[in-house]
């Protein structure tokens, strides 16, 4: 990949920026979290369903951020960022998820109900 070092602002990673995308990301993410807020304030569902729903909404917010703000895709410029993130996410889920699971089972067995 040849890059013109005299005009660094024309580097592919910089030229991804666009005001329209940033604004879309801003609005979409706030709207999604706003829905979460409304659902929680209205106690719209049972506790478990509510938790599942706001988790899904947080996941969608994350996707929106990654697409509109981080510009992640499989292009030449962003390929490694996307790939490393995809390899990283399972670790986040494993460390939080398995920890929650083992302690939930533990508490059920040894401490309280």
């Amino acid at each position, binding site marked *: 990949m040849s890059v013109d070092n005299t005009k660094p602002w024309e580097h592919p990673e910089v030229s991804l920026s666009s005001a329209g995308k940033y604004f879309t990301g801003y609005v979409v993410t706030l709207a999604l979290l706003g829905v979460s807020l409304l659902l929680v304030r209205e106690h719209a569902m049972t506790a478990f369903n509510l938790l599942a729903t706001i988790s899904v909404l947080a996941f969608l917010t994350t996707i929106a951020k990654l697409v509109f703000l981080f510009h992640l895709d499989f292009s030449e410029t962003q390929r490694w960022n996307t790939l490393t993130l995809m390899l990283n996410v399972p670790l986040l889920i*494993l460390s939080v998820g398995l920890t929650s699971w*083992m302690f939930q089972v533990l508490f059920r067995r040894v401490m309280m109900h």
Partner: protein
Amino acid sequence: MTEVQQHWDPIFGRLTLSQVPYDNLIVCFAFFFAATLGLVILGALTYYRKWGYFWREWLTTIDHKRIGIMYAVVGTVMLFRGFVDAIMMRTQQVMAAGPASPGYLGAEHGYLPPYHYDQIYGSHGTIMLIFAATPLLAGFMNFLVPLQIGARDMAFPYINALAFWLTAVGAALTMLSLFVGDFSHAGWVGLAPLTELPYSPDVGVDYWSWAIQIGSVGTTLGAVNIITTIIKMRAPGMTWMRLPLFTWTSLTTNVIGLTAFPVLGVAIGLLSLDRYFDTHFYTTGMGGNFMLYTDLFWIWGHPEVYFIILPSWGIMSEIIPTFSQKKLFGYPVMVAATLSIGCISWTVWLHHFFTMGAGPIVNGFYSVATMLVAIPTGVKVFDWALTMVRGRVTFPTPMLWAVSAIFMQIIGGWTGMMLAIPAINYMTHNGVFVIAHFHCVVMVTVFAVIGGTTFWFPKVFGFTLHETSGKWVFWLLVGGTFIVFTAMFILGLTGMPRRLAYVPYASWWPILAIEELGVFVDIAALGAFIYQMWVSIRDRELNKAGRDPWGTSRSLEWMTHSPVPAYNFAVIPHVNARDEWAWRRDYRLHHVMPNEFKDIELPVNTPVPMFIGICSAAFGFAMIWRIWWLAIVSLVAMIAIVCLRSFGGSTGTTIPADEVRRLERLAARPSMRSRPETAIPEGVVVLGGGDAR
């Protein structure tokens, strides 16, 4: 801020003269040993007027090869310290078996009081895993990875130096704890809630936690560096499926380093919050949960095991094909096995605390996940074996080490599979069977590291190590190791718990004595090693190595001169095959030299990483002794240095083409120049379509 029970003043924090254990005979002896060694080195630097050289070429260097060597030196010093700890523990146990055993030096049994003994096993584990194995392997990776992928340097040479200095500071803090204050008595894993302030009011736990914290920031930065280097800096033609296996394992290991060490930072950071701010993460009352510490620690701890073992397998995978004169059997499968071990390492951590009682479903999940590790590991063992099958196998010292490491791996792996069964694990938990198991596994690393050192020593320093004494080291160390750990397995099955300062059953004494015998053999191995170094350095002119002293090696690092010039390769090679150097040799292209040189740009040295290291040492020391003003000053200084440095431009220096040509002529051995020119096959492009001569 939590009030400490003991003395504290605003200038010196908890530090008083009485914290120096001058009344302890053993510590005094260690101090005199260290001080004498230090004075000899400083005196030699002054006498030979090497201070300028030392500053220019080592302290301020950002050359990945020099940094690799410095990592290895730190690792070797710490390995020695950890070995001394091991000797002391073995000796204590054999002296303190049974109620009738006598006591010396103020101990009731043996010669070490329990509190002192507890610090020794804590420091032995911490040092061996974090400040010996990790720096030694980091040294190998630093030195080899850029050479194996055909790069001039790391992606971030400056960060590389910074990572080294932070690791060195961690090691230095651990050593300092010997002479000022004490070290953690709660094991290398930091058993919560024993590490909490009420149960460990001294500075020992703080030494342990800050040494690890600072060192692991270094490891994380190093991981960023090596991953980026492998992804971005490969020579043309170096496709993923041509990457040498050591580079593959370095990549996997550093992915683990990148992702696991932050969790360790959190685990120990929350403990520090408990100790400094009186919070309740791991306390037994007030809503804390000490099993949370165990959980977070092992989320890091198990991947860390693979952090240490994977590069060792990489070293073995380089040595075995070289001395079988055959390419590695099943290369793609080896790569897949490496990557899958990296993945599985993240799903097994609960097997370190099956006895927590999370129940059969949770334990079953982790048990099965743990057993899955055996599949890729078994694949690796078979691949190494099949590499040797029908090869022209020779057994110089590196090969002896690599093959014995396979045996060690099999023993460690088998016993690991036994421990993966929760029912057995409940029996052996906190027993010496576990100790024997994981020592067999880490001995794979020790064997691979010594083998790798013998293998690459001529590449690093330009002369080979003395072979006969090397074989003495091998037979003594392997023999001693098998004696110690076979005996320990027997004791483990008999039910002996780990971490005993006093062994209650006199009937265990004979087996403990056998272990002690093994330790003596290991000490003899150390003596042989020192002799080997002395002979090798004495005869260095006789044993000068060319580019490829083994004559059968396979990857890119053997293409350049020994020792490797600052610019690594005069001209970056274009890679045509998986084992490029072997490929060139097979097709008689290995004497073809580039016919055209260009200017080479290299980064310039800088003392900034060392300054940041010094600040971090001051910060760590201040936090340990609760000298708040110094902690604030050094933290601000660190941030200020980072900010100010960013205002400087990027600095590089250029080696002109003529100078490269001159250095290349100088480095080429006479024998190589006088050799008749090899005919170059029709049409092979030597450089830029130019003429071959």
